[in-house]
């Protein structure tokens, strides 16, 4: 522990001399959280839709109105020939095209099945899936409505509600727990906290050491009797403090700007944030033992950040990943931390609920810290 105090004081002096470090550590994450928190919205509404109505009568207009009333679709234009219809989709002006055949009303009146063609641009899979489900559900509801009207007229119904009105034979009543309004922010913002914590800590820590290596001051330190532990801990503590303060700031932003309340225990949350912080510091240290220059450090840090963002379940659900990738995601510390964050913040999960994830994170933390401390030597090579 030789020299711990000296290193610590020096690190704070560096930070004092370069307050921009604090700007990047505190302000930028808040900015990122705000921007991403608002930008990432998976609820898809108002899909641009073009209508090619060859029927033009009451029934056709009702159908188009039903599409619009679902809020999923927004009619941006009506076309009157096949060429314009195709062009509207090909040019991207519309994502969905509804083509109503000329005999639509006639067939409905005659009690025959009428076919409505709905073309969907599949290039954006999320939008396409929403459009497809929306259109299918709409067709089903329209059909049911007609069926019910018919049942009414012949005084026959598959089932009736307590008031005696015809009703669906089976009623499924879904109830959304934890995020009843299905707000994207509730899902993304807690995850974003984990990603931002890792991003800032990883970069600050690896830079703090690699910069000294690049400037030659690390070599100068190696020639002194400073202890390995003193050097390491003295280097890490300031960034651990910055990381923790930043965690508090982003939590405040989450609660007061995004209105995502912390349902679980704050102490448990902060404790596990600390565990993750040490893991991120370990990753930063690991990068600093691998990189000789700050440029290399950036590249290594990105190498670690990419899977943390893409494979941890932050953006894409891990359940949807192919098996090998799914297994890889267990080696990413953020994976566990995201489960912990969402668990405590959204579901009021307790420590026993989260035990597997906490254990996973603890194992990652121990492994990364052990590896990086073992790799860090008071030697040049």
């Amino acid at each position, binding site marked *: 522990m030789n020299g711990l105090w000296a290193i610590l004081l020096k690190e704070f002096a560096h930070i004092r001399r370069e307050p921009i470090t604090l700007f990047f550590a505190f302000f930028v994450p808040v900015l990122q959280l705000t921007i991403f928190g608002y930008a990432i919205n998976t609820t898809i509404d108002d899909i641009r839709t073009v209508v090619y109505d060859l029927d033009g009568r009451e029934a056709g207009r009702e159908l188009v109105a039903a599409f619009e009333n679902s809020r999923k679709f927004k009619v941006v234009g009506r076309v009157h020939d096949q060429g314009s219809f195709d062009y509207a989709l090909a040019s991207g002006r519309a994502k969905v095209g509804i083509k109503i055949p000329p005999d639509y009303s006639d067939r409905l009146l005659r009690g025959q099945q009428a076919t409505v063609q709905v073309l969907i641009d599949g290039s954006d899979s999320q939008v396409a899936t929403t459009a497809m489900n929306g259109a299918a559900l709409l067709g089903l509801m329209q059909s049911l409505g007609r069926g019910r009207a018919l049942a009414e007229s012949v005084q026959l119904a598959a089932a009736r509600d307590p008031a005696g009105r015809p009703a669906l034979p089976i009623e499924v009543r879904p109830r959304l727990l934890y995020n009843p309004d299905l707000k994207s922010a509730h899902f993304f913002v807690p995850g974003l906290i984990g990603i931002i914590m890792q991003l800032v800590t990883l970069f600050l820590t690896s830079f703090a050491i690699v910069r000294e290596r690049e400037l030659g001051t690390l*070599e100068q330190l190696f*020639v002194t009797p400073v202890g390995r532990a003193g050097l390491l801990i003295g280097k890490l503590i300031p960034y651990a403090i910055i990381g923790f303060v930043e965690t508090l700031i982003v939590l405040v932003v989450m609660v007061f700007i995004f209105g995502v309340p912390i349902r679980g225990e704050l102490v448990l949350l902060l404790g596990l944030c600390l565990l993750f912080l040490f893991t991120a510091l370990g990753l930063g240290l690991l990068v600093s033992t691998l990189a000789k220059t700050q440029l290399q450090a950036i590249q290594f840090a990105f190498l670690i950040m990419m899977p943390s963002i893409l494979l941890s379940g932050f953006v894409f659900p891990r359940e949807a990943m192919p098996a090998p990738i799914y297994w890889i995601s267990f080696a990413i510390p953020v994976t566990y931390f995201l489960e912990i964050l969402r668990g405590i913040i959204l579901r009021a999960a307790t420590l026993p609920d989260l035990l597997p994830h906490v254990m996973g994170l603890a194992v990652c933390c121990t492994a990364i810290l052990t590896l990086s401390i073992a790799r860090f030597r008071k030697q040049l090579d």
Partner: protein
Amino acid sequence: MTGPGADAPVIEADHLTRRFGHVVAVHEVSFTVPRAAIYGFLGPNGSGKSTVIRVLCGVLRPSGGRGAVLGHDVEREAEAIKRRIGYMSQKFSLYADLSVEENLDFYGRIYGLSRARVRQRKKELFDLTGIGPFAPRLARQLSGGWKQRLALACALIHEPDVLFLDEPTAGIDPVARRELWDLLFALSGRGVTLFVTTHYMDEAERCTHVGYIYLSRLIVHGRPADLKQLENVTPAETRRLEIICPQPAVTLPRLRAVTGVRDATLFGEAVHVLVDHTVDDAALVAASGHAPVTVALRPIAPSLEDVFVTLSRQEARRRAS
């Protein structure tokens, strides 16, 4: 003093070798440095000077052989060595964003000096190096010479017994260079052993001992005066002459063409030659192509540069064959 007695060498290298992959940076280098010596370590760029210093300071492991500083083995007792040595690297490696005083405070704390001791040492070092008036200034704002003084002051904060300096005068002006050497002499006078690498021959002449490393091997070491007497620098059947003549640059190739002239080098207004005894003065004057009255010859002792140039050529020939 712990360990060896006062006569024991302060630095010992015994067949010290360091490889980087397949590259041998230092090959079986052996020498000793006595207490309070100023040991000048010379050699071309990339010959392994810095590597030797780093191995002796305990930041690079030797690949073979043995090294010891103050009786401590460089491999097993590196931390014991680090308490008692100071090191000034080739490149300025203090914290540019800290002030002169903060840098000194930092190193004082690193060496575990008490607050009162740091204060006292700072005062002493301010007196020694004259950097006191710049104490509140940031290190990055200092000029090259003052940066070197600050680096020296930081390396001396814990009163080391041995000071390693890797090209301390590279890139600083002649006045600052002279002043830095005056400081080094003062330290040597206090019993500090100095190990200095340099490119400058005039600096080598000031050292009590010199070693010359060429292509990772130490080819000669000893006191400068002894090296100049070396048999293979000025072999028995040869003599060294200084030839003062007009247009020495033009004369040089003419002299080199004479059989029996083993070596000829330009030295300012003169040419230094190493010639066989079979070649007499008249032959050299004739070969110079100038009127005899304009040419003056006198016998000279070899300079250290002559020693090193002659020996590296011999070494290069020996390795080529």
